[in-house]
Each structure stands twice: as structure tokens, then as C-alpha cells.
């Protein structure tokens, strides 16, 4: 692995912009950030804060045409994007991309985009408002197997650049950068450890996860919590590991029929409703239970090597019903304590 020193990330952005379309978090007037195609000129420096949405939509498209039908022939419509770089992805979102890489390993649409992508991660040095990445092995520092390059802001204001894949090395070709100092890595580790220390040290999340993993929660808990679920789909839209989709057929402007897939949510009442009206998850409590045990269960860990949750905290912010990750964990722990008392 190579390590370099940068005074500013712009050098790297400009170099990459010659071969890749650059996507970055771009802040609006409110200071909220969105993943967008960065203007070629001028490139803005990157932000370390979590954007409202993860870059999930750049690989698992929120609307994607799957195939078209002209009356006789079905034609697959795989996208062919130009090479692009995601500049400045936080650890939680990179962990989620790695998770979705496994889930969508055989999906040609996802892979067509994914193969064209270069991932440049950025370490977080301060906890974000709702994040708990450190409790689910998803941050705050970027893991080397989740990104092609990793940027780390040093106390001096300079940047440490780690190149963590062949793709990353290849992308740097033609750019000469000074090597990083020999103690830069130690400094990085210290800064990341310091960041972890700054998170709230309440054990609630760990305890909540343990309760979920033990499958020891009764119906009554989920039925009661389920009343608060509006099925707004906020959590599943913003969750970087969620992958459910629906399909519908639409007409294109050439008179063909196109099957399109679009982000769906297992929290909708009709998600499993069949034409016969049979619905195994008609109750909100059932859907809620499945959502959380899909994020945290021994089976998920066995399949993916980690939890389905990356601790980004977006569900907590966006849930009007007060049943996002933090709220659910708090509730699970309180419920367990009440039961222990009885």
C-alpha cells in the first residue's frame, strides 16, 4: 500500500477529472450535502460531513430500465456509464457499498456501474449527530478493503492519501506525489481512536443489538412499536444497505414497453400482498420485526460477514414515527429491563 502527502485534495481531484467524471458531496445554501456530478471547473474542495443521501443510487439506481419489448423481442438494457469517481465517501457509506457489492454480485445493472467506479474514501474525525458506525464495525476510519483510495485530514491541515487497491494505483498514474511521513499512519490511528472516544458512550446500541441477535423479543413489543410506523419509506430510501425494489411496465417514447425497477420498501403494507389478498406481513409490527432482524441477525452476519447496518444514523433522523435505530434500541433495552423486573 502506498501513502502520500497532499497539501490540498484539489490536486487529486483535478488529476482524476481528466479520466473520470467526478461525483462529490455538494453543499446547498442550507449546508445540506447531496451527491452530485461536480462541475469540471471549478472543483470544490470536499466536505467531511455526511450527505443527506448515501451514493447508493449511483450503483443501485433508484429507477432503472431493465429491458424493452417491441412486440416481438425482449432486449436487455444494461447501462454503460463512463468511468466515474466518487470523491469523498464516508466510511459508513463505503461499508454499505461493499455490502451491496456482495448482495448484487450477479446483478448486471449494478455491476455495469460498479465496475466503472473509483471510490475515494474520507476518514471521519468527529462523530456525526446520529452515527454509531464504530459500534457496527463501519467506521469512523475507512477500511482499506472498502475503497480504492483513502483521504485522511491531518492535524497540520495536510492530507494523508492511502492507495488501497490496484485500481487506485492505476488511477494515480501520471501524478507524482510526495511520500507521506513515516509516522503518518500512527498519527492516523491516533486521530481515529480519538474520534471513537468522542462518540456517546452509552451501551444502549450494543445492548439493543444483542437483544435483536438473540431473537428473544416477543410479538407484543413489535405490535406496539408497529403502531408508530407510517410506512413513509424514509428509512429504506436513505438506508445505504437497503436493496428492495419493485417493477412496473411503462411505455417509452418509441412505442416500446419497458420494464423498470424502482426502490421499494418492505415497510409498505402492500410489499408482500398477493393478488389473492393473502398478505403474510399485513401487520406493521411484523414488517418492523423483519426489517430490524434483517439488519441484525446471525443469518445476516453469516451471509455478509457483518451486520446489515452501517451505523450511519440516517433512519433515526428521518423517521417521523420515532422508531429509527437509536429509538428502537432504546426501546428494546427498556422493554427488556421492564420484563426483567416483572
Amino acid at each position: 500500500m502506498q501513502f502520500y502527502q497532499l497539501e490540498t485534495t484539489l490536486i487529486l481531484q483535478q488529476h482524476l477529472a481528466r479520466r473520470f467524471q467526478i461525483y462529490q458531496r455538494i453543499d446547498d445554501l442550507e449546508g445540506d450535502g447531496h451527491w452530485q456530478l461536480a462541475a469540471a471547473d471549478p472543483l470544490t474542495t470536499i466536505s467531511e460531513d455526511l450527505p443527506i443521501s448515501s451514493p447508493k443510487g449511483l450503483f443501485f439506481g433508484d429507477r432503472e430500465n431493465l429491458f424493452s419489448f417491441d412486440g416481438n423481442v425482449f432486449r436487455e438494457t444494461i447501462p454503460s456509464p463512463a468511468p466515474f469517481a466518487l470523491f469523498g465517501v464516508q466510511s459508513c457509506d463505503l461499508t454499505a457499498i461493499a455490502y451491496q457489492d456482495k448482495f448484487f454480485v450477479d446483478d448486471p445493472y449494478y455491476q455495469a456501474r460498479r465496475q466503472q467506479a473509483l471510490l475515494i474514501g474520507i476518514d471521519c474525525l468527529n462523530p456525526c449527530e446520529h452515527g454509531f458506525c464504530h459500534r457496527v464495525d463501519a467506521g469512523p476510519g475507512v477500511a482499506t478493503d472498502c475503497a480504492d483510495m483513502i483521504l485522511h485530514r491531518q492535524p497540520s491541515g495536510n492530507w494523508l492519501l492511502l492507495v488501497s487497491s490496484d485500481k487506485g494505483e492505476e488511477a494515480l498514474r501520471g501524478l507524482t506525489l510526495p511520500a507521506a511521513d513515516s509516522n503518518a499512519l500512527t498519527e492516523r490511528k491516533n486521530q481515529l481512536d480519538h474520534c471513537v472516544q468522542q462518540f456517546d458512550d452509552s451501551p444502549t446500541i450494543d445492548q439493543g443489538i444483542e437483544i435483536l441477535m438473540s431473537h428473544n423479543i416477543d410479538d407484543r413489543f413489535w405490535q406496539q412499536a408497529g403502531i408508530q410506523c407510517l410506512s413513509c419509506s424514509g428509512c429504506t430510501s436513505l438506508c445505504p444497505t437497503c436493496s428492495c425494489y419493485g417493477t412496473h411496465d411503462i411505455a417509452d417514447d418509441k412505442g416500446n414497453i419497458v420494464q423498470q425497477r424502482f426502490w421499494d420498501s418492505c415497510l409498505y403494507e402492500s410489499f408482500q400482498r398477493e393478488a389473492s389478498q393473502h398478505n403474510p406481513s399485513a401487520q406493521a409490527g411484523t414488517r418492523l420485526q423483519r426489517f430490524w432482524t434483517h439488519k441484525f441477525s446471525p443469518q445476516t452476519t453469516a451471509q455478509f460477514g457483518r451486520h446489515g447496518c452501517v451505523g450511519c444514523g440516517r433512519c433515526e433522523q428521518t423517521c417521523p414515527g420515532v422508531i429509527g435505530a437509536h429509538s428502537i434500541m432504546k426501546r428494546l433495552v427498556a422493554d427488556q429491563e421492564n420484563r426483567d423486573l416483572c
Partner: protein
Amino acid sequence: MATHSISTICPYCGVGCGINLLVDGNTAVGVEPQPCHPISRGQLCAKGWSTAYGIDIGDRISKPLLRDQHGFHETSWDNALNIITEKLTTIIAESGADALGVISSARATNEDNYAAQKLARAVFKTNNVDHCARICHSPTVAGLKMTLGSGAMTNSAEDIFSADVIMVIGADPTENHSIIGGHIMRAQLQGAKLIVIDPRKSRLAKLANIHLQLKAGSNIALINAMLEEIISHQWHDQDFIQHRCEGFDELAAAVSGSLVTAPIATGVDSALICAAAKAYSQANNAMILYGMGVTQYVSGTFNVISLSNLALTCGQIGRPGTGINPLRGQNNVQGACDMGCLPNVYPGYQAVDDSDTHHKFSAAWGTELSNKKGLTSLGMTTAAMEGSFHGLILFGEDPVVTDPDQNHVRAALQKLDLLVVAELTMTETAKLADVVLPAASFAEKDGTFTNCERRVQHLQQALSPTGETRADWRWLAAIAERLGSDQLNWDSTEEIFNEMAALTPIYSGMSYHQLDQKHGLQWPCNEQHPLGTAILHRDKFATSSGKAQLIGVHPIATDETADDQYPLILTTNRLHFHYGCGSMTRKSPLLERETPAGILFINPQDAKQKNIHHLDPVGVRSRRGYLETRAMYTEDVPPGLVSMPYHFREAPSNQLTNAAQDPISKMPELKACAVAVTALEPGCLPRDMDTLRGVQ
């Protein structure tokens, strides 16, 4: 993937959440919530999340349409405007200006609405202007004007977090106003006590500390009983009453005897009524939030007055965490009212028949205006049937689906000589128009919306208008111009806003620049309150005396009660995932999939008596009409009550509802009518409205 993100305001309900439209080129491809928005704080409801589908150009009307015997055919704007203005001129010449009317849209911007009433008043010379507030909060406007001097939400959404007791009556804020519903759930988790008064077990009722499951229409009996309990225990705020109210003694006399009759009148146990009375009156801060379950009755205005009596008697107003808070339904119904799209007031609730106001507006607009109060929307349909009303311009409304007694509405609209409808898509009402004009969606124009807490927010245009669609103020201006008037001669929405603000005291301190700085401003915003007003009536009320009026009211029976022929009471409700007539939300494949198999919610006890099983096809009949749907077993409605959402044109609840009106506000009694439910042949498909009407 989106190329950029535009900050705007959600077009659905009155919460006015901040929303980012994700745009690719000139197409909305998705949305994001706004963490920095003071109310929505990074949240959206299912409707908000579906916004991109709602404005999808797929089935948008993109050119003007003319109807002839074969149906609709496209035409040019030029031709459409000529036809419209010719007919308008003829109607005015033959029948006078009062044979015309404008129904504006509570979903369109303040600028669109200001333009609409100015067209009617300054160009046509009539006060026949109205909009759907008639059928939602007209009793609020009328009732609170009488008691407090002003008809708007007294507090703000964030007051929910300062309330110790939250009383939700006749409202279902987790389904519509979902983000405010979420605030209420959060406040309860943080320790607030929740009292819900509703004939159905709504979601909040299931979470409530106290649920008063009263009989539909017995609001006054219940509130009077609570008042009697409060007064008898001396729990009322005597200091507040003495200094800030008038009429207490009459009120005390009016409620005397209500508690003993309440259990029969309301169906609620006295112990529960007393518990609610104690909790509300003794709370440090108690907040009332209410909706259609209070207003949509023949006693609607009195119901509102009754709530006002409760809040005033307990001094629960004029401070944080308190107040009387009508949940204005649409994204801009507050604004449409503020803009004077009402037959009796100009912008800012200045009366048309007040001579000073009449002079002010006549001078400002440079023309002599009518000082005769105009017709309400329901008045217009009645006058159309009677033959004295001939021309209507209507935009962003679907009264055939959303107004009561739709057969009557349909007949009235068909009788008109001219019906012009401006819309995004071909709604049931648009199908009856002589001319359909293509309207721009909220994303295709800029302007301002005023949410339920009086917050005026500035929208940013995200897309250029599709096809030949135009913002409403623009085609309204084009009509004025064709008629030879320069009254609507503006170049920008900002010009309209500034003109309006100069004439509207409660908006006088606002400008686009300031709105943009601060996520909007709450009126009144003027010299005394340059940063707007979060809480009304802090020091004095807006009545002429400065004191609030306590007005004793007595229970008024609903127009229809259950009888042998129509043994069940039908009420209406909203579902979380659909909005209004469904013209936008039903374009989302996800929300449309959420539509249940049937929409008659019925208690299993009532259903079994008629041999109706869950999901069986049923016919529902009232004195007005008939429809078919499927029965949905639920314990959420008590025996004797059935409920239907009104979003679905194929089984429109307004086929059945009663247009009997509250005499003061002309509000129709949408919340209660008598119906008969019968099982259809098992296995047969319920017939939709088009089939039943013989249209195919």
C-alpha cells in the same frame, strides 16, 4: 442519477415540509428530505417521498384542450383564450358580472391565488370567489373570528414540544400532516400526555393516554360536559378569564347540565370525560389540535367556538405549548384564505362590505369594485342549478371527487355555459370542462405557500414548465389582458407578492429576500413584528374589544341520523399514502399499490349481521347516491359507524355524503350521513363509478 438538488416546499399538506427535488436535466427523478428545515427536520411522509412520481410528465396535460361532441382536442393558447374571453364577455353582457365566478386552488401559490381574486374583483367585478377551504376550515375562519378575532392556528408546530397535554380532536395527524403527527408521537414519548377525541381508533388514539371515542357529531355535548366539570371544580383560569375574556357567566350557564347527559349524548363514560377535563385544565401548557372532525358538520362553526371556549376558560392560549390549532389541510389553503379567495373578504381578511376597505382596494386597483358579498362554492353550484350562474373558472381542484353530493356537483357544472378548468392531469372535474388549460406543477414555477402555522415560505422553481403549461397567475393574466385589462400586468411573482404585501397588513413586513433568509416568516409580519409572529394573542386578542369572546353553544344534531332505511352512519377519513382526489399520489406505483382492496371500513359485528365477510363486495347507498366497493373488517370503527377515505374516484365517498350546510360558514356536513350497506353477489367485482353511471 440527479444532476442537481433544488430546495423547495412539499406540495401536499399544510405542514409545509422542506423538500429537495432531485433533478436530472428537466426531469424530477427523486426527492430528499431537508435536515435544516425547522419543521420537517429531515423527515418526509410517504406522499412527500413520492413527489417525483406525482409530477411525472407522463399523463400531464401539456396543451390547451377544447371539448366538442367527440371529446377533447388540442388547440393553441391563442384560440383557447379567445373562446374563453368571448364567452366571458357574453355572460357579463347578458347576465351580469355576478353570473361568473372563480374557484381558486388551495394547492397553488399565494401569487396565483392573489391573481385569481383580482381577476374576479378588478376585471369581472364580482366577489364570487371561493376555494376548498369552504369544505374544510370555513367554520374555523368564521368561528375563531367571532371568539378570538382571527381564524388561524394560534401557535406553531414546535409548540407541540412545549406542551404537557396535547389534545387532538377530530383530526388524524399521522395520516395527513404526518410530520406534525410524528411530533406528537415524539412529544408523548418525551412525557406529554395525549388525549384523542375521535369516533374511530385512529393511530394516535391507539397511542393516547385517554381516547374519548365519541359518537360522530357530539363534539359540543362532550366539550360542554368537560367545561361543566372544569367550572364545578374551579379548575378554570379565573385570572385569565377576568382580564382577557368576556361572556363567562353566560357560558357557565350554557354548559350547566351537560355532564349528566353527556354519556348518552356522546357515548363516552363520564369518568373518561372528567379525566380529560382535569388533565387539560390542570396542565401547565395544553394544546388543542383539530381538523375536519370538528369542522365538517352543520354545527361546524359552533364546534369551533366550543373548542375556543375550552381553551379560553382554561387560559390555555397565548403562550408556548398552548393554543387552538386548526390543522389546515392543503399546502396553501391558509394562503388561499389569506389572499382573499373568499366571497366576503379581500386579502388579509378585510371585509368586502366594509366601506373603508372598499375604498382602499378600489383606489389601489384604480377601479370601482363591487361591495356585495359573493357566492360560496356551494352557492355557485346551487345558483348554477337555478339558472342564475353561468360561468366558472376553476383551477387545481376536483370538486366532482372532493365536494359532497357529487351527483349534484356534476349536474351543476354541466349546466354552466362556460367551465374553464386548469389542471395538471385529466381529473373527473376537468372531464366536464369546455376548455382545459395546461397548468404548471409546483416544481415548474416559483412563488410562496403559507403553511398551517402561518409560515410563508418561498419555493424555488426546479423545472421549466413542461409542454405549453403555464403557472396559474400567467394564464389568469392572459385572460385579463384579452379582456382589455391591465390589472394583472405583472412580470414576475415577486411583483405580485410585493403588490399584495402592500395591501395586506399581516404580510406587510415580508419580502422574498427576507423569506429566503429565514425558512419563511409567520404572519403577522409587519412593523410591530418584523420577524413574524410565532404565537398569536399573547397580550390581546384581535377582537375590537381586545378581549376574547366566550360564547355558549348548545349541541346541534347531525342533519341525518341512522334509521331503518339507512341504519349506519358514514364518516370519511384520510389514508396516509394518498392525497385529496389522488390525482398526484396515484401516479406513484408504490402508493397506488398501497391502495386497499376495498375502502368501506366496517366493524365485523355490523358486517356479520349482513352476512358480509372481509373483502366481500358491497353496495353502499345514501339518500344522494350509490357506490360499490369491498368491505374491510376493522375494529378501528365502532359498531354503527362505517368510514370511507375520499381519495378514490372509482368509489367516491362523495357519491353518498350530505351537502346540508352549517348556516354560518356554509360548510357541508361531510363527516356524517346515513347509509345502508348490502352484500353483493359473492365473487362478483364491485362496479366502479363510471360503470354505474353508464359511462364507458
